[in-house]
């Protein structure tokens, strides 16, 4: 990997976005500023990658950063790996639109790390090498265990990756108006540069940089949002419940019963549960997937192989929990601050999911949409969002590529006989393959609803990887039969349940809704046209024209849907309507995964799994013979 190649790469990336202007949250005159901030962050990460590229010569460097990352550094890197754009922008957005429920939603993402800390991080560090497959292959049949582990790793990472690529593409487009395809390619190319040239060393530093930027941006925003209330929590929340924009949003969400409620009650309702999360079983199901799935996420698991000892793995989870938890507490202020300073109506007008709450709040605290500082803040938050996507995607690609090269190619195909050079080359080639696939999937999935794929990734990890890892580590009778059966059935069950759930697109229902809009449109458009003609002054005329434009756009959208699904009435698995009402499969698929590991182990005889138990159990508890840090 020559210096020249890397520079040419960086130059290509830097030039890419300039050619594609369009509309976004950032106004045209401030786009130069935004790209400047983007450029600074990209330059910093590229410099780190350049330094890392010179160090990455061995497999241990490529997959595990030579096991020389400190506990504190790894804590920041885990936070950087974990806090995706969905949590950074999504949860602040949910809080700004739905209040209490958005905050409640964030809790599970932190509690998940208790499982990681107590039962996964240290044992895996003690017995593992680079991948999930290594942990499972310790006492189970290595080839079979590595094959299913690789399949599961690639499945989980691909779901998560698709959500990140599509979400990231839409986000960058909404923020600064770069074309969707261009932003997907930019994210993909940058991420490829980090992973291919710098392996885990560069990925770790990109994640640390991103986490520091994210926390800094959030602390600054919260400081300016909270300061006017003298940093008093009741004072701030009093302002929230009394805010007319909040009252208006709650009135809209509550519907008819709002007529019987006072403005004070409506405002207070924003701090009470039930505005967003309606189905408790679904929430418990999602909670199970988070609490058990995080510990089974291959890209999170992989981070524990980068530290020198199990004690450092422990320390890194403690730091990660402090950073991640602290960040979610800050999102309460970001979300509520956006609700009163920007308002739900304006936030959801730009993005229905509320993703623009944080960026718009940044613009507000800096002085508003016409101020230079406000736009600098917005540019900074947009750049952090971009760095977030790239850092998370890099971690996922590295995990998948490691499964391909280390587990499948070296472990299964070559029977563990590969030199360091061969293995590093295989890892780099795998990274390029996975990275290019991520770009292609990102572009092909344009316009698809991918939000549920994050929850699905966690559900698959919780139903497939976690039962296999947990029982391999702690249950004496667990063996290859159980691991193979449990992982395959767990993953299949989670995916199959989502395929028949309300998460999928059901053309029949979409067409019925679209037909309703089309049928009602002529009368509405006539009325709106009359309103434009009857408008007395310019302001009224502009408002009426805006309403008319929206009706026309809705009509066009509905006609587009009717055309798109003209020849089809069924979802991709051939259903006209969902078979189940549950959106999150965890509550069924997780127990099923555990049951299959249990049954498979009972009905299968595997001498190696039995013989290796004593060694595994002693080593996972003591760290004797754990993979040591490489000298450098």
């Amino acid at each position, binding site marked *: 990997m020559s210096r020249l190649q890397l520079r040419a790469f960086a130059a290509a990336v830097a030039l890419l976005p300039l050619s594609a202007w369009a509309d976004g949250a950032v106004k045209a005159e401030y786009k130069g500023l935004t790209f400047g901030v983007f450029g600074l962050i990209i330059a910093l990460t590229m410099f780190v990658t350049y330094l890392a590229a010179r160090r990455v010569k061995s497999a241990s460097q490529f997959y595990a950063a030579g096991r020389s990352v400190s506990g504190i550094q790894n804590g920041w890197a885990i936070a950087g790996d974990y806090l995706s754009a969905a949590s950074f922008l999504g949860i602040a957005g949910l809080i700004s639109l739905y209040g*209490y*429920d958005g*905050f*409640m939603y964030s*809790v*599970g993402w*932190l*509690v998940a*790390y*208790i*499982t990681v*800390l*107590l*039962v996964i991080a240290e044992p895996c560090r003690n017995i593992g090498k680079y991948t999930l497959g290594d942990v499972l292959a310790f006492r189970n049949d290595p080839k079979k265990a590595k094959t299913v582990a690789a399949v599961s790793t690639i499945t989980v990472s691909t779901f998560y990756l698709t959500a990140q690529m599509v979400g990231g593409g839409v986000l960058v487009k909404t923020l600064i108006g770069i074309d969707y395809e261009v932003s997907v390619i930019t994210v993909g190319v940058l991420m490829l540069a980090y992973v291919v040239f710098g392996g885990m060393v560069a990925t770790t530093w990109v994640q640390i940089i991103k986490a520091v930027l994210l926390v800094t941006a959030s602390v600054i925003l919260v400081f300016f949002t909270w300061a006017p209330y003298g940093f008093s*929590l*009741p*004072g701030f*929340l*009093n302002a*929230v*419940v009394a805010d007319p924009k909040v009252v208006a949003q709650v009135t809209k969400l509550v519907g008819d019963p709002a007529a019987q409620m006072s403005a004070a009650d409506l405002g*207070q309702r924003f*701090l*009470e*549960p*039930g505005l967003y*999360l309606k189905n*408790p079983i679904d*929430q*418990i199901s999602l*909670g199970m997937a988070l*609490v058990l799935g995080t510990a089974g996420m291959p890209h999170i698991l992989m981070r524990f192989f980068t530290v020198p000892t199990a*004690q450092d793995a*422990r*320390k890194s*989870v*403690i730091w990660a*929990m*402090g950073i991640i*938890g602290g960040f*979610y*507490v800050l999102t309460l202020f970001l979300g509520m601050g956006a609700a009163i300073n920007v308002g739900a109506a304006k936030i959801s007008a730009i993005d229905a999911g509320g993703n623009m709450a944080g960026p718009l709040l940044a613009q507000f605290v800096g002085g508003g949409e016409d101020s230079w500082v406000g736009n600098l803040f917005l540019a900074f938050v947009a750049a952090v969002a971009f760095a977030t996507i790239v850092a998370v995607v890099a971690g996922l690609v590295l995990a998948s590529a490691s499964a391909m090269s280390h587990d499948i190619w070296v472990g299964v195909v070559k029977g563990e006989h590969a030199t360091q050079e061969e293995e590093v080359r295989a890892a780099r080639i795998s990274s390029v393959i996975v990275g290019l696939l991520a770009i292609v999937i990102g572009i092909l999935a344009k316009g698809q609803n991918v939000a549920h794929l994050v929850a699905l990734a966690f559900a698959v990890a919780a139903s497939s990887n976690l039962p296999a890892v947990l029982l391999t580590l702690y249950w004496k009778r667990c063996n290859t039969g159980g691991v193979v059966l449990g992982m395959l059935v767990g993953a299949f069950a989670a995916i199959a349940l989502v395929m028949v759930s309300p998460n999928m697109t059901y053309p029949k229902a979409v067409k019925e809704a679209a037909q309703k809009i089309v049928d009602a449109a002529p009368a509405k458009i006539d009325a709106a046209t009359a309103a434009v003609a009857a408008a007395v002054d310019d302001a009224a005329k502009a408002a009426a024209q805006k309403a008319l434009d929206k009706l026309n756009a809705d009509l066009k959208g509905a006609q587009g849907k009717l055309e798109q699904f003209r020849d089809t009435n069924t979802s991709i698995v051939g259903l006209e309507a969902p078979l189940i009402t549950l959106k999150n499969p965890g509550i069924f698929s997780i127990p099923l995964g555990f049951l299959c590991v249990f049954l498979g182990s009972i009905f299968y005889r595997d001498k190696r799994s039995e013989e*290796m138990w*004593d*060694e595994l*159990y*002693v*080593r996972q*508890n*003591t*760290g*004797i*013979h754990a993979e040591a840090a490489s000298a450098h």
Partner: protein
Amino acid sequence: MSDKAMDWAAIDRDPRFVELHRRKSRFLWSLMAISVVYYFALPIGAAYFQELFRIKVWGPINVGLVFALSEFIVAWGIAWIYARRANSEFDALASEIIAKAASMGEST
């Protein structure tokens, strides 16, 4: 890879290892159980005990908000309790076993 010099079964039977394993397992699984129960109490409470969650305790701050914030405190608290005991007790027990590991099983 398995080191033939180590007698893993002997270490596994060693009273010090049995003691480490016994203390660690009981402690870990109780912490795990507490955190899972406490976590799932939040969505269950939000769904089925809404009247309780609405009671205001400090200005506009209600029971539900205090409970949600307490989830963070409890998660951090469990992490802190675990780390403290692991750093002082489990690590010491483990290093004692590591020091003696190579010679274990020689007399049996």
